[in-house]
């Protein structure tokens, strides 16, 4: 019996309602993201007659965002490969910051150190911070997540939370429970240049200048190297990857290492930029960076960078306009909105499960 059928071509085209829903959720998200700076931009025009204030907000926001991008990449790499939110990642960032700072004195780096020596010294501390964070991340995976691979998702998530707390306490024991000012080695707030009434400080430039090569290195590694291909294969289909001879365990460890390296670098940059460290900075950073990763599209590297930059702007505008005691609530509100209405984020594709 032939009922009124539809041709295969017609069937393959996405239904109108699906297209509309996708459109609304994507542009809706973009709209509520843009609305925030736009609102204050308009206010500036009315009050000051220029866009300097919002411009400064955005510059600071992008530089903060560059740091968050590095941390967000760590989340997204790990989630992409084993679908686990590494809850302790924020603390990996914090430990990186602490490790970097801890080396300044022994290495003799102070605010008075000459430029060449300073750059060299900071590079050394950055590498050290990266190594500390990287190995810590690998160790956590080995000790806390790998043994739980047969267990329901709940188990490693709880372990992750546990590690997060342990590391926070390590922070407390290391440098105390209050925020700790650190020497302003690069004079981070000093203006480097200005344009159209907007001031760009040295810290701003540092954040960007440091982030770009790291991101490029990472993307080319993941995109081109053999290990990078192994990572992508494992992320897409772990069983197939195993069958093709990829050592899944090592690949996962490598992923954690990379995420940790980036977080460690971010830690150093953040310390130079903000000129302080605090055991609690990992918790806030972690949630901000995770929001960034989700906003961009979890599992997607470009998304993590994009999300980081956007979140940095939102954070900065909120700090400056609403008050920094409210910023976490603002960011979490965005997180809830994204998770509710567009969990795949701006760029995200559906990862493993279809339909």
């Amino acid at each position, binding site marked *: 019996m032939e009922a009124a059928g539809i041709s295969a071509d017609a069937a393959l085209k996405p239904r109108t309602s699906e297209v509309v829903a996708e459109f609304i959720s994507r542009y809706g998200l973009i709209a509520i993201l843009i609305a925030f700076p736009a609102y204050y931009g308009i206010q500036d025009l009315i009050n000051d007659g220029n866009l300097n204030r919002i411009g400064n907000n955005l510059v600071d926001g992008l530089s903060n965002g560059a740091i968050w991008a590095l941390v967000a990449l760590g989340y997204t790499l790990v989630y992409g490969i*084993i*679908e*686990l*939110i590494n809850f302790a990642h924020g603390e990996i960032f914090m430990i990186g910051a602490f490790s970097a700072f801890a080396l300044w004195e022994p290495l003799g780096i102070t605010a008075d150190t000459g430029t060449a020596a300073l750059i060299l010294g900071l590079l050394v501390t950055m590498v050290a911070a990266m190594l500390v964070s990287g190995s810590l991340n690998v160790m956590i995976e080995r*000790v*806390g997540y790998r*043994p*739980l*691979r*047969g*267990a*329901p*998702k*709940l*188990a*490693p*998530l*709880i*372990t992750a*939370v*546990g*590690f*997060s*707390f*342990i*590391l*926070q*306490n*390590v922070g*407390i*024991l290391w440098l105390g*429970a209050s925020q700790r000012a650190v020497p302003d080695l690069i004079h981070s707030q000093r203006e480097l240049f200005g344009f159209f009434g907007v001031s760009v400080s040295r810290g701003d430039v540092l954040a960007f200048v440091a982030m770009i090569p790291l991101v490029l290195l990472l993307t080319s590694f993941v995109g081109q190297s053999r290990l990078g291909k192994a990572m992508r294969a494992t992320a897409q289909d*772990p*069983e197939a990857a*195993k069958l093709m001879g990829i050592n*899944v365990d090592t690949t996962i460890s490598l992923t954690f290492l990379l995420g940790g390296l980036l977080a460690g670098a971010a830690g150093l940059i953040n310390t130079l930029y903000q000129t302080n460290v605090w055991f609690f900075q990992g*918790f806030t950073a972690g*949630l901000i960076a*995770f929001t960034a990763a*989700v906003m961009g599209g979890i599992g997607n590297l470009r998304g993590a960078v994009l999300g980081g930059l956007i979140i940095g702007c939102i954070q900065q505008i909120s700090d400056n306009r609403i*008050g920094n*005691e*409210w910023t*976490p*609530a603002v960011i*979490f*509100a965005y*997180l*809830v909105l994204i*998770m*509710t209405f567009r*969990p795949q984020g701006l760029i995200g594709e559906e990862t*493993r*499960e279809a339909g």
Partner: protein
Amino acid sequence: MSTIQELRTKPWAAYLLPGVVIIAAALFPLFRPPLDGFMDDCILALAYVMMALGLNLVVGFAGLLDLGYVAFYALGAMAVGWWASDFFTGAGGEKGIHIGVTGFAKTLPGIHVNFLLLVVGAIIVCAVAGAIIGLPTLRLRGDYIAIVTLAFGEIIGRIFANGDEITFFGDYKLSNGRQSISPIDSIDVPALAPFDSALNLRPYYWTIFAMVLVVLFVNFRLRDSKLGRAWIALREDEVAAASMGVPLVKTKLLAYATGGAFGGISGAFLGAYFSSVNANQFQFGFSIFILAMVILGGLGSIWGVVLGAVALSFVNIRLIPDVLDQGFVGDALRDAGLKFSFTEISFGVFGFILVIMMVLRPEGLLPERRRKMELTEGIGETESVFEARV
């Protein structure tokens, strides 16, 4: 058969041990002075037991990882902060609004509602809040649920911590910000004089004890009911559960609402007991504290969770400051030149407990029969990425 074996076969044997414990716990205040440090600790422990039972319902029975349980504590506490104190001085003119209150509180300005009514109010507010918090999580996978609930916990905590900046109807602030709302009316049960925590702790003890008994009762009843089975089915295999007719949305929201309600009751009680409510307590760490109790005791195991809650409560109050810090361990560490106070690392200790339990004994101290199988033998998680690699 020996006497013990004979006893074991009797139908009421399963009730013997719990029954003895309950009776002992009920009578215990009579053997202590009215104002007693130990009783104070027990009251606090019981309040935590109630919260842990509530969280157990969400995480243990229904398998929804809620990392924002502090939100319910906050809502319950703020309920008494608003409506059993002089926080809203000015409401109802000079005289204030009084519902069901007697004695001294009746003369005070502000809104004063009887504690029992506030408990009912806290239940309703937290149940609704639970449903609202649960809504965004309905289509999300397990770890995303954790993040969203955490986010809500933080949002609510921050709103109250900064609530002194929010005003409505003119001068009324939403909360006192970082400062306490104090004093809170004492608990006023009809036919008895209002309690006074400066004079006699026993009534407070029996109040929280009675409330915990009710909550235990509710837990047992629900566990062995249609809803309880639906929760466990949902936890094990959502797809199969839906195919068997379990309505996922309604079942999940009921878990959040019921679990949250218990948190609210406990929050309200603690506010009244301490006679003070302070938004600084509404931190993520608190959610982890309660979660650690559930994990330690055994996810989904009612008696296990009670044990875990009592244990961690005393670790927090006693073991860390008294035994470890002041005791021989602390001395030994100081002798070795390590200068730190164990109190400073209490949260690290809880983190450690979480990790150790998950890696070594994920089913907890008093495991629920089913969970033990799930967690040790990897049964029940059909689409876990991890399992694919085993």
